C-alpha cells in the first residue's frame, strides 16, 4: 500500500538524518522524501512516500511520532488530498521529433522552458502517476536527463497539518 506521510519537524540540524536513519535502521521503504522550510522559521515540512502493509505503516507513523524532532504527523492518504510532483527533463529534440515532443508536452500540460538546436528542457507538474505516464509516452532513447522533486502533498478541505 502506497502512503504519503506529511510531517512538521523542528527546523534543526540532524532532524532529517534522524528520520532517514529511522527508515534505514528499521528497514522501511522510502519512495521519495522532500523537505523544505515553511512559513514558520522553526519548522520544516517533510513529505515521505512509502510502501508497506497496514501494520508496517502503523509502525512507521508511531516510530516517527516518537522522535523528539517530529512535531506533527499526518497520513495524507487517510483522507482526501492533493499530491504534486515537479519533474524537469532534458530530451533530444531534432528534426521532426521537435514538433512531436511539443505536442506531447501540450497534452500533458507541461512547458518547454529551454530550447537549443538539439534539446528541449521540459517542466511538468502533477501527481506521480501522471509523470510516470509522460515518461512512458516519451521514446526512451530521447530522454537525456530526468530530475524529479519527489512528492509534496496537502490535505483537502478542513484537515490541516499545523500547530
Amino acid at each position: 500500500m502506497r502512503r504519503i506521510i506529511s510531517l512538521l519537524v523542528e527546523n534543526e540540524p540532524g532532524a532529517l538524518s534522524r528520520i532517514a536513519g529511522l527508515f534505514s535502521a528499521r528497514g522501511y521503504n522510502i519512495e521519495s522524501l522532500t523537505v523544505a522550510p515553511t512559513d514558520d522559521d522553526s519548522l520544516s515540512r517533510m513529505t515521505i512516500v512509502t510502501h508497506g502493509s497496514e501494520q508496517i505503516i502503523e509502525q512507521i507513523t508511531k516510530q516517527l511520532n516518537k522522535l523528539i524532532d517530529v512535531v506533527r504527523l499526518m497520513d495524507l492518504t487517510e483522507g482526501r488530498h492533493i499530491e504534486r510532483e515537479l519533474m524537469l527533463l532534458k530530451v533530444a529534440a531534432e528534426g521532426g521529433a521537435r514538433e512531436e515532443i511539443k505536442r506531447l508536452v501540450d497534452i500533458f500540460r507541461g512547458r518547454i522552458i529551454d530550447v537549443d538546436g538539439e534539446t528541449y528542457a521540459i517542466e511538468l507538474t502533477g501527481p506521480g502517476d501522471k509523470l510516470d505516464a509522460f515518461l512512458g509516452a516519451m521514446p526512451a532513447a530521447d530522454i537525456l536527463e530526468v530530475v524529479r522533486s519527489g512528492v509534496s502533498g496537502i490535505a483537502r478541505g478542513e484537515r490541516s497539518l499545523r500547530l
Partner: protein
Amino acid sequence: MELTGAQIVVQSLKDEGVELVFGYPGGAALHIYDAFYSQEDVRHILVRHEQAATHAADGYARATGKTGVVLVTSGPGVTNAVTGIATAYMDSIPMVILTGQVPTHLIGDDAFQEVDTVGITRPCVKHNFLVRDVNDLAATMKKAFFIANSGRPGPVVVDIPKDVTAQTTHYSYPKNVRIRSYAPAHKAHAKQISRAASLLLRARKPIIYTGGGVVLSGAAKQLTTLVERLGHPCTNTLMGLGALASDHPKFLGMLGMHGTYEANMAMYECDVMLAVGARFDDRVTGDLKKFSPNAKIIHIDIDPASIGKNVSVEVPIVGDAGAALEQLLDALDHTSVEQDTDSLGQWWEQIDAWRDRDSLGYDASDEVIKPQFVVQKLHEVTLGDAYVTSDVGQHQMWAAQYYGFNKPRRWINSGGLGTMGFGLPSAMGVQLAHPEAAVACVTGEASIIMCIQELSTCRQYDLPIKIINLNNRYMGMVRQWQEFFYDRRYSHSYMDSLPDFVELASSFGHTGIRVEKPGDVEGALRDAFAQKDQLVFLDFVTDQTENVYPMIAAGAGHNEMVLKPLPDGSAPAERELA
C-alpha cells in the same frame, strides 16, 4: 551568576540533584573536569574504561530509578561508551551521557579525537544534542534530564565542544521544561480500561504477562494487588523479575526461551492475556506464528510504538503501567460483570499439573558443583534480599531462574542487548547507590574478563561487591548451542589460558576464594558475605557440561519446549518435546 560552560555543566548537575557521575577524563572534557576539582556536591567516580562508566551509571539507575550520569571525552571516549549507551537504550534505562567534543571550529575537520558523536549514537539514544552555544547549555541539560526519565525512559547524549565549556554566560537553571513535540501519556483511556476489565473477568484461561515497564514505572504494588484481586496466574519476563514476588502463589516463574514449563504452556493455552510493560521480544514469544493462538490480548504500555509491533492486540492501552493498573483496579470495583470463577478454578488445576513437571529440577551432585545449586545457596545466604547483577550467558539464565527475586529493582541484567561485561561495572553503580546492601555479581569466567579492569575501581572506592564466578571454562551458552545445533562442534567456545582468579583478585587488593566441592559452596558464600567491607571474588569451579533447561529453540513455539534430558541421557533431538 556568570559561569563558564564547564561550571554550568557541574552546576546544572547539582541543580538537578545528581549525586554521582561516572566518568573518565580526556582532552575535550578537561575544562569540565577542572570544574569538578573545586567542589564536593557531585561525586565523581573514576572508572577504568568508558564502557564501565556507562554500565555503572546504568546499574545505579536500575537500582534506584534515578537517572544515571556519565561523563566521557570525545572520540574514543565516546566510542567506548557506545556499548553501554546501547545497553541502556534496549532496556529503557534513564541516563544522561555528557561527552566532550572538539572545539566547534574544528568539528568536521577530522580533528584529533574527533568523532561524530551525535551521528554515531543516534540509533541507540532516546535523543541527543550537540550544544554549539553556551547560552543553550543550561536549558539543554534540563531537557536532557527531562527526556531521559519521563515517558519510556532512555539514554540522552549531550555533546559539548571544548570551546563551549570555556565560554562564559549568565547561568540560571530552568525550573520547568516544555518540549512541544514531546508529551508522554500518563493516564490511560477510560473506555479501553473498562473493556479490559470485562475481558479479564470473563476470561476462562487468563494470564498476566509483565515486563521491565512494571519495574521502571514502580508499579509492583499495583501489579500484586491486581493479581490477588483477580486470582490470575502471572509470569514475568527476564526484565520484569521481582515485580511479582517469586514466592507468590500466583507466580509461574519467568517465561520465554528459558522460562518455566508452566509459564510457557499457560501463555500458549491462554484465552485472555494482559501484557503490561512488556514488548513481545523474540526471546519471549518464540515463533510468532505459534504465539498464543487463542488469546485476546490487552496490552498496557507507555510507548504506543510497542503496542501492535509484533503481535496484534485486542485492547491497546497507552499509559504509565502504575497509573493504568490503578485505573484497572478501580474499574474492577465498579463493574457489574461477574468473574468466571469456575473456569478459573479448572485453569489452575491445569496449571498445577504443568507445575508438577518441575521444569527447573536438576540433578544434584556430591562430586561436582552444579551452577544452579550455587545460585540457590546464594539466595539462602542473602535471605533473597541481595541486589544481583549479571553478565550474559548461562549464568544469567540460572540467576534469573533460581535466585527468586521478591522485590523489584533487585535483578540487574542486560536483557535487550545482552552485553557481556555488564555485570561488574553495573554492580559498582548498585553498590554506590546502596552502600550497606549486599550486592552480588553473578558471572562467568568469559564475561567477567570483559570488564575485569574495574576491580581497580572497586579497590579505589572500597566497594564490597561479591563476585560469584560460575567458572565452567566455556562460554557456556555458546557451547550449549553448539552442542544442540552444531553437532557438538565446539568452535572457539573453550576458555583457554584463564588467569588464576584468586591471585588476580588479590593483585587488585581484594580477596579471592576458589571453591571446588559442592560441600564448600555454602560455607564460602557465608564467609564472603560476612566480609562487609571487602570485595570477595568467589571462583566456583562448576560442571562443564551443564545446560540451561527448559529451552525453546529459536523458531519454536511456547508449546514446543525442550525439557531437561531423561536420566538415560537421550540426545537432545530425541528429548521429550512438550
